[in-house]
């Protein structure tokens, strides 16, 4: 079996804060194959952004492994990480804060080309503009003089400039209007095809993720609770949290009436992680069994959920992380 481009294993990330420890990532494991788009969803505070920052190593994980192309870089010193970043890039949620407001678009797009000593930079710059469908006229403008969609295109050009293989997209369409969103998604897909990119697409917007990603990871309180091929997860959501989440999405069609599944209590605190299933305190179907750590049960090939209700009659477990699906 071919080894994945990125393998995340038992990733843990904790932050000491006044009054306790925030367990942002609590043993996250998954793999991303070259050329695919993996969607990552979950609510605010579930650890999505921490995971993104760990993958590009803006944040050093507390424990666990991050293997890119066969090399574990979780503990690499900053100097070595810089070379990794040529391959692993990130597009941030809000280009207004991610881009230096006093730099021109030219300087912004040129910077990563200089940092990574990309040859024939001027030609690359022109090519990049073409790729992200921006006119040359914007090169002398600063972020404040660009539209929201143009700013995000500049941010995308910066990320793909050094010809990375893996790009983490953290809510890349959250800051733009709906009419712009479709164009950005189409652009990201085109770039993936032309530049042979692999994406981790982070979003809280399931309607968007459904249309861009091949596979879906659902996170809750620092854990991946369900993972599988997009259509498999949507047609057979198997963790109760995934079911609640999917039932909450408003459908833009007045003729559709959905039944929203309830949750109990209040959003949890990441300083107090419950034992066993992290969703247990809010789950209407929780039992004593859920106080024990839940293994992943295979729902369909490559589709697994850490919920006792996903247990098939025969009880086939796949163990945390490394294995997914049957080859």
């Amino acid at each position: 079996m071919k080894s994945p481009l990125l393998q995340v294993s038992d990733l843990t990330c904790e932050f000491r804060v006044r009054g306790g420890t925030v367990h942002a990532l609590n043993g996250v494991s998954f793999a991303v194959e070259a050329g695919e788009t993996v969607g990552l969803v979950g609510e605010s505070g579930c650890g999505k952004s921490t995971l993104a920052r760990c993958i590009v190593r803006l944040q050093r994980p507390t424990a666990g492994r991050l293997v890119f192309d066969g090399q574990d870089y979780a503990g690499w010193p900053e100097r070595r990480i810089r070379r990794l970043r040529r391959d692993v890039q990130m597009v941030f949620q809000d280009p207004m804060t991610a881009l230096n407001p006093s730099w021109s678009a030219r300087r912004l797009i040129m910077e990563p080309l200089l940092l990574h000593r990309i040859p024939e930079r001027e030609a690359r710059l022109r090519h990049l503009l073409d790729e992200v469908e921006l006119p040359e006229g914007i090169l002398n403008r600063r972020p404040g003089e660009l539209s929201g969609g143009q700013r995000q295109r500049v941010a995308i050009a910066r990320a793909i400039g050094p010809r990375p293989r893996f790009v983490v997209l953290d809510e890349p369409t959250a800051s733009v209007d709906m009419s712009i969103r479709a164009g950005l998604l189409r652009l990201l897909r085109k770039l993936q095809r032309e530049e042979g990119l692999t994406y981790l697409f982070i979003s809280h917007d399931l309607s968007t993720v459904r249309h861009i990603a091949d596979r879906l990871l659902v996170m809750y309180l620092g854990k991946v609770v369900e993972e599988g091929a997009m259509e498999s997860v949507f047609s057979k959501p198997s963790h109760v949290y995934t079911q609640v989440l999917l039932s909450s999405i408003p459908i833009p069609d007045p003729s559709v009436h959905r039944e929203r599944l309830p949750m109990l209590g209040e959003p949890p605190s990441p300083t107090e992680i419950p034992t066993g299933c992290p969703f247990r305190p809010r789950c209407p179907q929780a039992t004593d069994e859920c106080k024990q750590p839940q293994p992943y049960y295979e729902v369909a090939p490559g589709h697994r959920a850490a919920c006792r209700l996903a247990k098939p009659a025969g009880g086939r477990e796949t163990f945390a992380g490394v294995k997914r699906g049957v080859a």
Partner: protein
Amino acid sequence: MSTNLLTVEDLTVAFEGQSRPVLSRVNLQVPADGWMGLVGESGSGKSLTSLAMIGLLPPGASVLGGRVLMDGVDLLAQSPDQMRRVRGSRIGMIFQSPRSALNPLMTVGAQIARSISHQTGVPHAERGAVELLRKVQMPDPELRVHAYPHQLSGGMCQRVLIAMMLAARPRLLIADEPTTGLDVTVEAEILDLMHSLQEETGMAVLLITHDLGIVAEHCREVAVMYGGRIVEEAPADLLFRDPGHPYTAQLMATLLRADRPVDFAEAVGNRHPDVAAGSGCRYAPRCPHAEQACITTSIELEIAGPGHLVACRRRRQLAGLSIDEKAGMTRVGPRS
């Protein structure tokens, strides 16, 4: 025909020093009960319309013309004092980022109590605050009444604001992106709460949002804004099924829905983004069906059917086209 609670007539608003008005002859009829949606992208003027209605325009903006009629009275002609009373009692408001609408130095109970006192004249209304928190399904209301806004989640802060609004028993609630920034599960809870409160009180809700999913789910009537004008107004089921304006069609064509995969829509046909919008339709430069006259000739909302108003010169020629055809879009396969 249901009666209208509030009618906006030819509302025109401009910012100081700008030649073109930011709202241009906006007409809107808010039904006396049920939900009406006001949709459009950022900068289309939907929030400004609601602020003008309640006399809270930002500094630099002024009303150049038009009327806002409620109970036969033009709200635009009221004094600031009179408007303050209207806002407190007849029109309630909730906004995006609920935490910033609360006083960080007061407990939420004290803020709700103050709102009750303001309405009823009862001096110490702390007990009423707990009742209202219970009504908005705040968990542990006896405990939360003593909490400060920073101790509550965004969803809970919005519940507090809804409680304060309820104290006044308004006949119209203006909700401007009330759930933007909240998680999807919390958003669903807040909207469901608002829905049951609306049914209980029979108030009217004017929901301002860019999220057509929420509109489809809650609103009976919808008005669509573009470039400071209403371009279409229709019952929700009709608007989603057979939009009359090419801009509305574009919104519908680019919708992504979570319940089934759709192919991306991609623009085809002639557009003229470099042409400056003239005195005609503001959407004309982006419209695949625009003619020269669309840019230069002014256009009003016209009746296109029962309860259906459209401001498009080419409305008749476009009738019968599919949504994608009206929007000038074609479908691109998911993996192409």
